[in-house]
């Protein structure tokens, strides 16, 4: 989704450079963009909740059938589910699971994707083979391939990460290959090559560091997609096992009690929306920050009126 989205306020570059002595440039740029900052705040808040889950919430597995499907109240802020588990605790622990899945999917898809993208971009002989495999994997719609992989791997949190990681690796590989193709033609790479640099040196020293920024942008989108896909898989009953508190699992139970207990859908639903919304705000902002072309354009536009 590398598309410019000029709705947000252009940055004043002059001011940003003036303040760069006081704080790092990225931080000053970030603080100037309210929308990006809002995204960052949402993400930090959710991460804090996820990390501090044991201190905030009660035991998400404790059942109390006497109070099953009770409305939100002072003791159970988000109500209880069909076996009397506290929905607030489950939503809070669900945040933990979502973040764990998101982080590990990003790590895994980056290892696979950056690896094959660099190989395809740098070693021309392998380009066709590697990229055709990636095209083939991308011919499957993401959720469908994830469902099929889960069918083979069996339900577990680890397998959800592996399945979603495999699904998103080709998408990362494409972006990486694209920037490697540009970087390998630059004069500094040519110069290093003329000096007799080895492939490993070229990749590690010149190519990888320079193709990082488009990849980092991709990272926040992969993260959002991973959270969404995990929720969808669990909702369908083919994701993490049902006893694990996950937003998708809560929704899946909630679907059966929609009439009696809408809070089972509303609270985890709000959590998913808030997380994805935060990631999208943040991702859009980071993309614009790291892409000097778009940054330049927005200040041009401002000057034009």
């Amino acid at each position, binding site marked *: 989704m590398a598309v410019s989205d000029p709705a947000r306020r252009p940055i004043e570059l002059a001011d940003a450079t003036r303040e760069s002595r006081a704080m790092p440039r990225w931080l000053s740029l970030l603080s100037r963009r309210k929308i990006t900052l809002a995204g960052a705040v949402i993400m930090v808040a959710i991460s804090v909740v996820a990390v501090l889950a044991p201190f905030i919430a009660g035991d998400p597995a404790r059942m109390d059938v006497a109070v099953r499907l009770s409305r939100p109240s002072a003791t159970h802020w988000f109500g209880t589910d069909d076996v009397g588990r506290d929905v607030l605790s489950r939503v809070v622990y669900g945040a933990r699971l979502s973040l764990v899945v998101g982080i590990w999917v990003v790590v895994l898809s980056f290892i696979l994707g950056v690896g094959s993208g660099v190989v395809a971009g740098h070693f021309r002989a392998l380009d066709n083979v590697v990229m*055709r495999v990636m095209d083939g994997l991308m011919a499957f719609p993401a959720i469908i391939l994830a469902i099929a992989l889960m069918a083979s791997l069996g339900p577990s949190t680890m397998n959800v990460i592996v399945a979603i990681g495999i699904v998103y690796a080709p998408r990362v590989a494409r972006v990486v290959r694209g920037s490697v193709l540009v970087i390998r033609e630059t004069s500094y790479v040519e110069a290093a090559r003329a000096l007799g640099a080895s492939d490993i040196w070229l990749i590690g020293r010149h190519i990888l560091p320079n193709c990082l920024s488009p990849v980092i942008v991709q990272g926040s989108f992969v993260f959002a997609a991973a959270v969404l896909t995990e929720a969808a898989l669990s909702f369908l009953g083919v994701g993490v096992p049902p006893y694990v508190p996950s937003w998708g699992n809560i929704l899946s139970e*909630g679907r059966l009690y929609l009439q009696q207990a*809408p809070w089972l859908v509303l609270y985890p639903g709000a959590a998913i929306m808030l997380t994805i919304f935060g990631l999208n705000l943040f991702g859009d902002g980071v993309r614009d920050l790291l892409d000097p072309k778009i940054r330049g354009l927005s200040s041009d536009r401002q000057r034009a009126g």
Partner: protein
Amino acid sequence: MRTYVVRRLLALIPVALVVATVGFVLIHLAPGDPASIIAGPDASADDVQKLRSQLGLDEPLVMQLVHWYGRLLRGDLGRSIFLRKPVTEAIADRIEPTLLLTLMATLIAVAIGVPSGVLSARYHNSVTDQAFMVLALVGISIPNFLLGLLFVLCFGVWLGWFPVAGYSPLEYGWLKTLRSLVMPAMALGLVQSALVARIARSSMLDVLREQFIVAGRAKGLGERLVVYKHAFRNALIPTVTIIGISFAILLSGAVVVETIFNIPGLGRLIISAVLRRDYPVIQGVVLCIAGVSMLINLAVDLSYLVIDPRVKYR
């Protein structure tokens, strides 16, 4: 022009080969021997052995792969273990609701997304633009299955305007079918329209910065003519691409949303197959959906010939 078409068709071959191989790998990825999985946990060792030779699993892996390609070319996807009929038949029984749902959702996504994207671009940075874009950002943050659940809650349970779940096949009258698909199609289409709107808007903005737009304005063309005739036609190319991609996304989204509304489509088929470990059905549905998305991509590529005259000379 013909070379373009031929090149596109040839490019499909390696992709199709990889897709077929992935379909093959899927069943071999499962822990344990496919034959014992298919036979179930309480089958005797003898039965498993018989099934193994019946399925050709005692042959070398390479030969199995070759046979697999051969069967796919003949359109043979194997037999369902649970439903006891050919997978192709099982898919044919279930494809109608999924395709109708996807089509309806795509229409909704385009009908809402393209006009709002174009309007946002025309009145760039105005209140309309910002309102549309905030809406779009909220839109892409709602997963379709969540929106579906909220619709059921709101329009089905609380207001009672639409049936909460279920599907009425075409043979009982298309009006009933349409009614049963309104909520799921809206759930899918509205979310996708947000993405379409964002792409349409940014490609319009890109085109509006081009020299020929400046030239058009300079020679005194009205703003309406500049925007809707000259700019829009050029902005169509990325927009059509995203509509094609949308169809594929919505097809897989339909698979998810079907669960909420109890629609007996491909989605229910594959999910129940996963729960029953009915691998031939899983393979079949996955390959079928991948095949449809490949054809859609081809159609999108070929549609450039109509939209963008520059493609003909390549």
